[in-house]
């Protein structure tokens, strides 16, 4: 795995002034994946937007860990449903065409 794809958890926590235990809790809840290298613990760059989002939920909006888990699950469902709507709209077009 390329090292430039990795974000040091310590650095992330320092920049955002958050406690490292928060990131650990997210990992324990299965919400993010932490990668342990020889020198440090990191997260993959792809996970950064999600990690920042969860930090916002926790620190800015005062939502606890259980709330974050629920929101993450519901947002994923919402996203899947939006994709489903697009597909259903495509399917509907076929029937609308046949009705004309």
């Amino acid at each position, binding site marked *: 795995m390329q090292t430039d794809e990795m974000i040091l958890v310590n650095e992330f926590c320092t*920049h*955002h*002034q958050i406690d490292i235990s928060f990131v650990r809790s997210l990992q324990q809840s299965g919400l993010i994946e932490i990668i342990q290298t020889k020198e440090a613990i990191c997260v993959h*760059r792809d996970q*950064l*937007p999600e990690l*920042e*989002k969860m*930090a*916002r*939920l926790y*620190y*800015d*909006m*005062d*939502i606890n860990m259980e709330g974050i888990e629920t*929101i993450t699950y519901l*947002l994923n469902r*919402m*996203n899947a449903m*939006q*994709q489903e709507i*697009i*597909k259903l709209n*495509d*399917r509907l*077009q*076929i029937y609308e*065409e*046949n009705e004309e």
Partner: protein
Amino acid sequence: MDYIDYYKILGIDKNAGADDIKKAYRKLARKLHPDLNPNDKEAHKKFQQVNEANEVLSDPEKRKKYDQYGKDWQHAEHFEQQRRSGGRRQQTGAQDFSGFEEHDFSSFFESMFGQGGGRQQAKFRGQDYQAELKLSLEGAMTTHQQVLTVNGKNIRITIPAGVENGQVIKLKGYGAPGVNGGPNGDLYITFNIMPHPVFKRLGNDLYMTANIDLYTALLGGEKTIDTLSGKVKLTVKPETQAGIKIRLKGKGFPVYKKEGEHGDLYITYQVQLPEKLTEKEKALFTELKNLK
């Protein structure tokens, strides 16, 4: 530029304490924050107002100035140069991760507090950009390159054949620049595939309607149709019923990132009845009718 009542936006009175402000902000943020309302522009806009109100009212200095000048804000003296230069702000816990750019504040805010007043110096990842790319069905059929202009920057992207309507691809680092040396955001491109007048797509399969005349439907024959990959000659079986659907294997849409693989093409036959019958034709049809 209108005066903005930040107290009204947060739903608090002018004597509200720091805790009340924080509580009101968090309550509204839980309802309107863009993280919880993806793709909802209205919620995003409202949250910007809430965020701005909190930015002002949760900072004692800004709140004092806001309260002092209030509706006469246009006559307010220039705020101290020091504030404009954006020193490290007090920790209000309100915006540490918001990633908003300067223009996310209203003109009213910028006029009173200067651009970017109160932003902190920590590194931030740049904001992600969202873009939509319209493609014709034919365009989505072949792997090709396209140049996009995003915020004045030209980006050449390769669009693989078989891309789906609504599919999102991510281009790392093509979002807004990071703040204070932070990494750039990403660019998310959503493909919007335009409806085609003849072909409808469902996954990798294509659907179309082909007209055949009554005689071909009854007696059988040949019918040449235009598919997206060229002309195809079909053999129509005798006594083909109207609305019957046939499948042409492998004549559908290319499968995304699977070179050489295609879905199927489904053709629904529509039988066209003859119009403006001559007397002789009418007599022959009557004869046919009487035979049964």
